[in-house]
């Protein structure tokens, strides 16, 4: 629901990462990671990015999203597994004391610029 704001943040951070000393840079890709547990819908984010990116130094860039699975570790028995459904108890010992190792990401990884 807030994908437009997220897209604007991505463009702002990515634009600030463009090297200052090179002219006519074309940013081709912005690579980001989105955890499956984050409140962001990848398709909506791509749609918003396409709108927001116009008339910015990133004009024409593509947003490439790597979705990160929700991985948990049990604090009791140290089991590690990927959570695919809405159950957050240990698959081995049923303990509720778990850590979420990944799945909350909303990170910009890199930008890719065209070779001059």
């Amino acid at each position, binding site marked *: 629901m807030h994908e437009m704001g997220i897209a604007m*943040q991505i463009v702002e951070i990515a634009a600030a990462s463009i090297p200052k000393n090179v002219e006519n840079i074309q940013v081709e890709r912005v690579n980001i990671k989105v955890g499956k*547990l984050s409140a962001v819908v990848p398709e909506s984010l791509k749609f918003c990015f396409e709108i927001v990116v116009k008339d910015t130094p990133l004009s024409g860039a593509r947003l490439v999203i790597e979705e990160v699975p929700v991985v948990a570790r049990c604090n009791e028995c140290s089991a590690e597994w990927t959570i695919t459904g809405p159950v957050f108890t240990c698959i081995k010992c049923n303990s509720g004391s778990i850590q979420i190792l990944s799945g909350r990401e*909303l990170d910009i990884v*890199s930008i890719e610029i065209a070779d001059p």
Partner: protein
Amino acid sequence: MEIKVVRKVLDVNDTMAQQNRSRFADEKVFVLNVMSSPGSGKTTTLVKTISRLLPEIKCAVIVGDICSTIDADRLSVTGVQVVQVNTDEFGGDCHLAAHVIGNAANSIDLEAVDLLIVENVGNLVCPAEFDIGEDARVVVLSVTEGEDKPLKYPLMFRVCDAALLNKTDLLPYLEYDKNDAVKNILQIHPDMSVFEISAKTEEGFEPWIMWLKERVKKKLA
């Protein structure tokens, strides 16, 4: 050529949230972020909660809505300081961001406050993603919303410390499986505190008020 960036998209918000957190620590103010879907009874719950906390715990409220001051008007009957934030000035945002809380807190006399309650914009999705510098998060879920809501909005139920299952006075009129709802909450967040309450009749309020008081006093100590 690939240029590494490696930054969190919500970096700016997270930094602001940390600034809020250290400011609230300096001022010895406990901040409670209250979230829910629209119409779950947040405002009524807070009016009744504040009435039970006063005068022992001095409260103030920041209330967020896309527009209108209806909730602020309702909350002001408690006599506490209330600041209404309308997010339509920020593009109709579906949540309160950390900088908005920072600004709103400027118009509150924090020295005279023990507990700052933030009534977030009614929405079970976005507010879960935004740290505002709070000490505890609570989600209000009413029995008219269906038992499956925790399963549909897992992030919200993962990030909250307690759930208030509200409007239990309506249970005799509904085909609602309360045990199933509690089971679903605990399936998402096994060590969550769940309080069954009726904001209308105030049934079940005592354990919830004790839970909150204990946390506020711990911070003030």
